[in-house]
């Protein structure tokens, strides 16, 4: 009895600890995969954010080259970190469209002047509606869209140097 009592606290702790560990491992998949992968790009019509670049209109670009769609914001630090990789992708021939989330023209201009401008089009998504309809839960995220306008891949978080070949391969496959 006494022995049992002495070791009971440790036993209780081990049980609770195991449960918490389980709870921590379970939702560690916090990267929310979009349900949109494998589905056609939803119809988006976003006004241009910069005077010298088109906005996003999916009905006009539904067919043609495979493209990448980068969800970003000038206030987002990982977006700064991934900027060189986006430039690399552009040099490798990728066509990159962008959705600027909760942003302003001036901020984005400054951001692009500083970090380089890999984008063909930039759509203005002040209300985060397009981001939601893409099933994207944060910035930055990058979608690969094939020539038929179907989302074939989603990259969550900043693109690191080692992700570039993978994304290029996805783009190649999407032709």
């Amino acid at each position, binding site marked *: 009895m006494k022995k049992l009592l002495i070791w009971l606290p440790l036993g209780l702790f081990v049980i609770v600890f195991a*449960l*918490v560990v389980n709870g921590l491992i379970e939702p560690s998949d916090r990267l929310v995969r979009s349900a949109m992968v494998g589905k056609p790009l939803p119809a988006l019509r976003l006004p241009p954010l910069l005077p010298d670049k088109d906005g996003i209109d999916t009905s006009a670009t539904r067919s043609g080259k495979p493209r990448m769609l980068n969800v970003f914001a000038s206030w987002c630090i990982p977006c700064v970190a991934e900027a060189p990789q986006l430039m690399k992708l552009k040099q490798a021939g990728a066509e990159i469209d962008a959705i600027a989330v909760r942003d302003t023209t001036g901020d984005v201009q400054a951001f692009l002047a500083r970090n380089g401008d890999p984008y063909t089009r930039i759509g203005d998504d002040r209300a985060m509606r397009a981001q939601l309809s893409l099933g994207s839960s944060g910035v930055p995220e990058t979608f690969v869209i094939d020539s038929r306008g179907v989302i074939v891949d989603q990259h969550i978080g900043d693109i690191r140097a080692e992700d570039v070949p993978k994304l290029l391969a996805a783009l190649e496959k999407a032709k």
Partner: protein
Amino acid sequence: MIAEAGLAALWLATAFAIAQLMLGAAAARAGDAAMMLAGVRRIALLQAVFALGAFLILIRLFATSDMSVLLVAQNSHSLKPMLYKIAGAWGNHEGSMLLWVTVLAVAGAGVSLFERRLAAGTLAATLAAQAAIAIGFYAFLAFASNPFARLNPAPADGQGLNPLLQDPGLAFHPPTLYLGYVGLSVAFSFAVAALLMRDVGPAFAKAMRPWVLGAWIFLTIGITAGSYWAYYELGWGGWWFWDPVENASLMPWLAATALLHSVNVLATRDGLRAWTLMLAVVAFSMSMVGTFLVRSGILVSVHAFAVDPTRGSFLLALLGLYIGGALALFGARVGTVTQGATFQLISREAALVLNNLLLSVILGVVLIGTLYPLVAQAMGVQLSIGAPFFEKTAVPIALALVAGTAAGPLLRWRKDSAQALLSRLTIPVAITGVSFALFFALSGGDSPIAVVVLALAFGLAAASVAPLWKRKLRRTPLPIWGMVVAHLGIAVSLAGMAADTLFKQERLAAVAVGDALHVGPFKVLLADVRPTVGPNWSAMEARLRVQRGTSAPFELTPQQRFFSSPPTNTSEAAIVTLWDGQVYTVLGAPDGAGRWQLRLWWKPFVTLIWAGGGLVALGGLIALAGRLRSGWRAAREEAWA
């Protein structure tokens, strides 16, 4: 360069912590610990100096808005007022963990400087245990959350600080809680050392007591301030939400309160030895659990910050290591701790045991309620536990605890009679009964629990000053004064909670400019709504003219604030404090037809909640002053002898 200097200081502090652990352990094992102890003391000081240096460097980086440091870029903004730039240093994960370990190191230095009563071996083991805890957190900083990481290229400006956290109260809230958490780590180290050295007795309890008291004071202040922050900042009119982050600060407080009472039994009567050791371990466990819950973001909460599983795992591993280790040590060694002094069923000791049991039950209930969503999630069910659960479980037990708080101090140590207790309790019981009848009639019987709380509060207030009865006030020892003030504070706080539940009045309506609303005895006129700007926000501000009867009106200006970086919106409640309560006003959205939503409360005597919390902390301070003074006297006498 300065960020690198900070990193270097952090590494040096780590090195000293390792040295402190090894030398401390060696000293504890050596026959003559006194010689080596001097070295351990010095190393503990050096560790603290370097940890503090690293933290000051981080503050400097934030103060100068050095955006080439990742942490600064993520959490600061050059437009922010200086106070929040500095507070930004610990308003984020990495900085707050650095603060944690800095406080830990400084506490270790405090032990090494001021502790003279304990046997050399036990003190060396205490410092070694303290270093072992610190090493884990240094590793955490170095491997999972380096606060000095650089960002290349540096951004033009930072991402700002969450505007909800731009508030003077909150700037000092986390440090206060951390001081409490870390104070409990010292109690934990004492307990581990006492177990290791088989040195459990009054001397150990007396050495531990000021640290427990100090930690408990900070926790009390932290909880009180956090409650007031949530009250005025969230704009929901409530003062406690049973939110996981709030529970994370409540649980260590409950454990520390139990420990505070049992350590007194050990120090004065040499009873409850194993019990006190266990509580010291539990109290620090709750600090670790609190840190883990807040910092891993594992639970959904109104306060939730970004989620990072690696950090959560690392903290959890530390928690498992320290607490599991301490409990295993407890299991292995507690058999060698001989039983202390015993006592009768009706005695001060028994009342304190009851206090401990009830506090443990409340702690258990809160812990289960806080962690249950995790367990459910593991089983694939999404749920959250809200106020109804805690109100149904914790509140009734807390009421029993309040009754015990009234009776306990009126009992004698070791042995007393039930009859004597009842006669001493006559007046408080009568007051409770009369006020129950009175307020039950007054409130119309809507919320009987709140009436019971209010009546008990009056009874407790009477009972808590009773220990001063027939004493010479000037010769009453300070710790007794501290107890009286703290218990009185509990009564005051309870009265505030009950009064808010029973008598608050609320109005919610859409109002056009020029129209008036009535809430309680007040007439509130919406005079104007106009835009206004602050340093990094813009806002819509309502001007409300509030008037009670024919007395002079005053103006309140609740706001809807829009922050640009990051883009968020907060509602700033406007509150006025009168002698008998607060008027609380919140501006909502326009309804599209020229009217504005207004939410108004009249909350009689609600301020007593936090005034009571302040009194409790003041009671702790008085007791601490008394303990330190007598400890200092004892040390001086020893030096003379």
